[in-house]
């Protein structure tokens, strides 16, 4: 009931969830059509869409902290990649004897490095539930520690953004090292099964797509619940006037920490869904550039709307796929031009286009 009432005031969210549900129903049907049917959706497209949905979830996580809390995180790809690594470790353990070296326990890269024993932190990742738990908890824990240190020192604004960049950069360097035990610069790949089903199987691809869509919907609703609560209003208050919030008695650091950690966990889930669909996770996912790109998606889609982040993530990534196919060299210029255009003419992003008319309607009431 509460959920319905909440959505009543959220036109954009209603439309977004409606489109999402429709997509989740339509895509498997279109995929099931015979291959020569003009509307047939190839497995490649299904996986591509699934990948976009995980990006969209990541963008929602960034919008929660940036749009509503005012923390411009330029390191969210780190949480995404950590979640991805947790899932990658599970998928590696599932390979078992089918690896190139045929070792029943050790993944190939460990055999290659002449390791004889599984490192302690790889234990437990043969169980799916454990890997999923870790995909949420590891990014959450990192965000908790990082946030606790950063927020209690009252680091804000640009400085905070810079240290989030440093965080993801440091992780990238660490994961590049073979000694870390995560496959060095090759990362984790050559996955075979998930939960006993082959990853090459079409049905599994569709399943992963649907799972991504469901998580995106759930993630959206969870963020919406937070934002609609008084806690969400406190978050916006912190964004707009941090000192004022502190002087009326809120522990600003704790609010920031709680929401930042939650957002990191969402990003981790997105990463965990991303890896089985693209089939690889390596340290380049930690690249500072990736985190910045997420911020660009959110800015283009429209800050502080949540569904805007989804529009931005899917729109920009679709454009990217198209451009890198049609004009591979022009993509970065196109992205730059798009960003300049949106900043100049649509400061509230694409979502701002129709949110504006909604707000005007509300102001009249």
């Amino acid at each position, binding site marked *: 009931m509460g959920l319905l009432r909440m959505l009543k005031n959220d036109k954009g969210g209603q439309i977004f969830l409606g489109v999402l549900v429709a997509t989740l129903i339509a895509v498997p049907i279109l995929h099931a059509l015979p291959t020569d049917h003009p509307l047939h959706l190839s497995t490649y497209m299904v996986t591509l869409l699934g990948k976009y949905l995980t990006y969209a979830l990541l963008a929602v996580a960034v919008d929660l902290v940036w749009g509503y809390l005012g923390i411009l995180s330029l390191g969210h790809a780190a949480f995404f990649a950590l979640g991805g690594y947790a899932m990658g470790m599970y998928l590696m353990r599932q390979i078992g004897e089918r690896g190139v070296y045929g070792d029943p326990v050790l993944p190939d890269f460990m055999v290659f490095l002449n390791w004889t024993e599984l490192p302690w932190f790889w234990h437990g990742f043969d169980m799916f539930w454990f890997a999923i738990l870790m995909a949420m908890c590891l990014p959450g824990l990192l965000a908790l520690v990082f946030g606790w240190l950063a927020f209690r020192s009252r680091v804000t604004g640009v400085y905070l953004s810079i240290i989030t960049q440093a965080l993801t950069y440091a992780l990238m360097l660490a994961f590049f090292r073979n000694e870390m035990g995560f496959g060095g610069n090759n990362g984790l790949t050559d996955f075979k099964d998930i939960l006993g089903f082959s990853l090459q199987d079409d049905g599994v691809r569709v399943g992963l797509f649907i799972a991504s869509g469901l998580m995106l919907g759930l993630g959206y609703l969870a963020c919406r619940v937070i934002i609609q609560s*008084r806690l969400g209003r406190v978050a*916006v*208050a912190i964004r*707009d006037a941090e000192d*004022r*919030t502190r002087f*009326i008695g809120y*522990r600003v650091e704790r609010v920031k920490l709680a929401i930042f950690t939650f957002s990191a966990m969402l990003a981790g889930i997105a990463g965990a869904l991303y890896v089985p669909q693209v089939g690889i996770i390596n340290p380049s996912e930690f690249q500072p550039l990736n985190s910045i790109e997420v911020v660009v998606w959110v800015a283009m889609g429209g800050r502080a709307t949540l569904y805007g982040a989804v529009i931005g993530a899917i729109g920009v990534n679709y454009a990217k796929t198209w451009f890198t196919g049609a004009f591979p060299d022009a993509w970065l210029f196109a992205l730059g031009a798009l960003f300049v255009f949106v900043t100049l003419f649509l400061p509230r992003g694409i979502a701002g286009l129709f949110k504006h008319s909604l707000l005007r309607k509300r102001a009249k009431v």
Partner: protein
Amino acid sequence: MKSGLLQRDRVFDFMTPKKVEGLDLKHGTVLYMEDVSVTFEGFKAINQLNFYLNTGELRCVIGPNGAGKTTMMDIITGKTRPDTGSCWFGQKYNLLQMDEPEIAQIGIGRKFQKPTVFEQHTVFENLELAMAGPKTIWSTFVAKLNGEQRDQLDQILAMICLTEEHSRLAGLLSHGQKQWLEIGMLLMQNPLMLLVDEPAAGMTHQEMDRTVDLLTSLAGNHSIVVVEHDMEFVRALNSRVTVLHQGAVLMEGSMDAVQKDERVVEVYLGQ
């Protein structure tokens, strides 16, 4: 002289010396500041300041720019830690060992010099956020307004003359209305003591008169410190006046006495 680490706007609590000396337990005093000094990079913003406020008293603090008025409020509300001295709220709370949210929670409300409201929230939401009550993460997350709280909110809306504006975004209010909203937010906290920094700035004469009425009606139930530049406003409040100069109290007395005092005249006009 302190080491470099301690010479900052804000140092970690465990690093500040905890010296509580000469605590006066005289009853009826809500705020004690004794021998407080703050230095910002060699500049003595507050210099051995002694300041006492009686329960229910309305007190105006005036002084030329840089006299330390705002710094004094920063110390009371926990934003700035003094180098030396003590600062007690009643006989129970050592303000120098508490941080801003704790100090707000025990009943000290502060209005900033520049009116600061949450511009993207409605007037109603601004007051709701400021409302007294538990402010932990979870209790905030599940918080719902009950009837009693709604009544309190409506009362305060009426008191600050913003009942009709209650669903407008605070950012759309006039300067004077923002000042009132901020005062209203202080009242929602059910504070024992109000620190009001330049409430009359940017107000029309009518608004100023109403602010005077509001503040004088609040005195008695609340202890109030008003920092103000506008002498007409201070005179209208008709309260005891403390004159700060170079971080210390120059004199205290009625507005008439203050205006006749030679030292005060010299401080204001001599430079």
